[in-house]
């Protein structure tokens, strides 16, 4: 069953050019999709359409097999069911955090759905604990950092235990550690069968939060829709839709150009070298740059695991695979050992982190 089915959707803001053009696609329940596109291509508008906040000028949207229209949402039963099943994490957390305290913010959704007071209290406490933000419970939103605001925004969206989570630019303004936290949370939600649809132009996180990618072009149509791994290898496509750019710079007296994106895992570098530019050390430097990026991200991830002592076998396996693919066999081995030997988990993770740190120093 599809969470959403969109047919020939067009949307435009009053008096402006269309934001979405003839959009037809489906989002399966339980799937993880990332909507990629440059700024202004209609990603956020699509999420607003999926959340029933705006409605298409032409075309139809079905949510869980039922038509999603303005009229349908005036029906209290339908509206309550839909709002319970679909949650939206806005790009700007200040917009979403309108209550006076974190506790009230998380309680807002369950209360609007007419849940009993005791159940609301339990839900809020559970969310605070699960997302490790209990210390923020009585804080006012304006006293929080951007990362903390994002955590609270996610907690408040998850409070109704939705089937579908929509995230608009989820990594906006997040430090590396909070990005890792976000990847972990989304991974866990996926394991629990939740549908996750994220809109971003940040390729560095996209591979961690989705298997499927829908790519929007700058003419507001779908340029590609398919497996994320395939799409990320398609330089021509990414260049055309303005997700990577040709980066020109100078090496001594030689000017050259290559393609550059910010995808840190299976990096899509290796663009065409111009004119008489040879395959000199720059390519290696560039790759080293991306290895460093992966290494840094992996170190942050390991530090997070060490700090929290969590046991996330699925995440560990995924990252062990990434380490292995990047040639970090020793690191991969330590992570696999951490999975196998839960008692010495922290020890193995610490060793993996130390290996990465040492290699980073050597590279420098």
């Amino acid at each position: 069953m599809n969470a959403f089915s969109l047919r020939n959707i067009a949307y435009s803001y009053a008096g402006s050019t269309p934001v979405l053009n003839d959009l037809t696609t489906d989002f399966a329940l339980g799937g993880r999709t990332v909507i990629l596109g440059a700024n202004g291509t209609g990603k956020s508008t699509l999420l607003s359409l999926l959340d029933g906040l705006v409605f298409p000028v032409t075309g139809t949207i079905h949510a869980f097999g039922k038509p999603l229209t303005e009229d349908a949402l005036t029906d209290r039963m339908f509206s309550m069911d839909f709002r319970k099943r679909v949650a939206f994490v806005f790009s700007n957390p200040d917009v979403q955090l309108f209550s006076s305290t974190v506790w009230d913010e998380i309680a807002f959704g369950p209360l609007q759905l007419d849940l009993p007071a005791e159940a609301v209290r339990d839900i809020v406490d559970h969310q605070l604990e699960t997302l490790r933000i209990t210390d923020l419970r009585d804080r006012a939103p304006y006293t929080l950092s951007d990362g903390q605001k994002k955590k609270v925004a996610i907690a408040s969206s998850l409070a109704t235990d939705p089937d579908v989570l929509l995230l608009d630019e989820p990594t906006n303004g997040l430090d590396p550690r909070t990005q890792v936290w976000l990847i972990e949370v989304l991974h866990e939600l996926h394991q629990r069968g939740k549908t996750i649809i994220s809109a971003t132009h940040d390729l560095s996180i996209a591979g961690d939060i989705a298997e499927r990618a829908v790519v929007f072009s700058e003419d507001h149509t779908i340029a590609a829709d398919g497996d994320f791994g395939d799409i990320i290898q398609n330089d021509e496509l990414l260049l055309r839709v303005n997700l990577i750019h040709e980066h020109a710079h100078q090496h001594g007296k030689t000017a050259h150009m290559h393609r550059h994106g910010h995808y840190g895992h299976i990096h899509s570098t290796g663009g065409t070298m111009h004119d008489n530019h040879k395959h000199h050390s720059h390519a290696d430097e560039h790759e080293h740059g991306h290895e460093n990026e992966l290494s840094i991200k992996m170190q942050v991830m390991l530090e997070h695991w060490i700090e929290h002592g969590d046991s996330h076998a699925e995440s560990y396996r995924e990252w062990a695979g990434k380490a292995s693919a990047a040639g970090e066999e020793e690191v991969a081995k330590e992570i696999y050992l951490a999975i196998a030997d839960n008692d010495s988990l922290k020890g193995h993770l610490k060793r993996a982190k130390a290996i990465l740190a040492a290699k980073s120093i050597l590279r420098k």
Partner: protein
Amino acid sequence: MSKTKFLDKSLLAVAKIAEQSLFSEVYARKEGLLQRLDVRIKLFGFLSLIVLISFFHSPYALWIMYGMSLTLASASRVPILFLQKRVWLFVPLFSAAVVLPAMLNIVTPGEPLWILVKLNRAYSWGPYVIPAEIAVTRQGLLGSIIFVSRVATSVSFAVLFTLTTRWTVAFSGLRALAAPRIFVITLSMTERYLFVFLRLIQDMYRARKSRTIRPLSAAIDRNWTASRIGVTFKKSMDMSEDIYKAMLSRGFHGEFRALDRFHAKPIDYLWLVTVVGFSGILLFLERIFFKG
């Protein structure tokens, strides 16, 4: 200093003071007597005190009440000097315009103490009379002392309440006084987004300052200030639309539901009985021993 510099500095100073006074909540986060109280009881207690203060006629009784506010401040780890500054900043503002004429025999007839002006004769317009000697009267002075003492004591309790209570908690406490939920929520959302826009204004000023190479004319400065007021208004409109969407997204359908999270303990009731009881007894004694 040019007028526009003065305007710039004033606006930034207002933003800074508003941020400090509304959002720092330094004393509200301290571990003191008043900070520990249930907000409903605290709000009820302070309102009762302020109402009782209006019944006192003796300056001595009012000074005892003022002393009680200082004692409570001390028990709540609020520096006395800091509280005094806050109180005496407001008192002249509220009372000077009323008190100064009221001391004179033009407004309050009575036994003259100091003659300020001597006129050739008395003037009268219907029921209004300006005496030949304009003087401060004993009755006028006493009335003014009582008035200033009453204002100072009331303001002292009001400031003490705001200093020791986080705004978010204070707003939720209004629910206990049967204030409509929509009113309380609108108030708390206003306070919450005031901060966002104060930051926005500060950032705009800083961004402009960082790109200003030479002094600009006063006209350009004025235009810029006016345009930023417009921008802030536009942003607030855009944000309000987005906030409404965020509320809809989480099930809002025009009616607010909220949970009150109050936990009144015996110490809260003990405090209430003590301070209100003490004030009531003081009022009773005043009526017996002070005949005005």
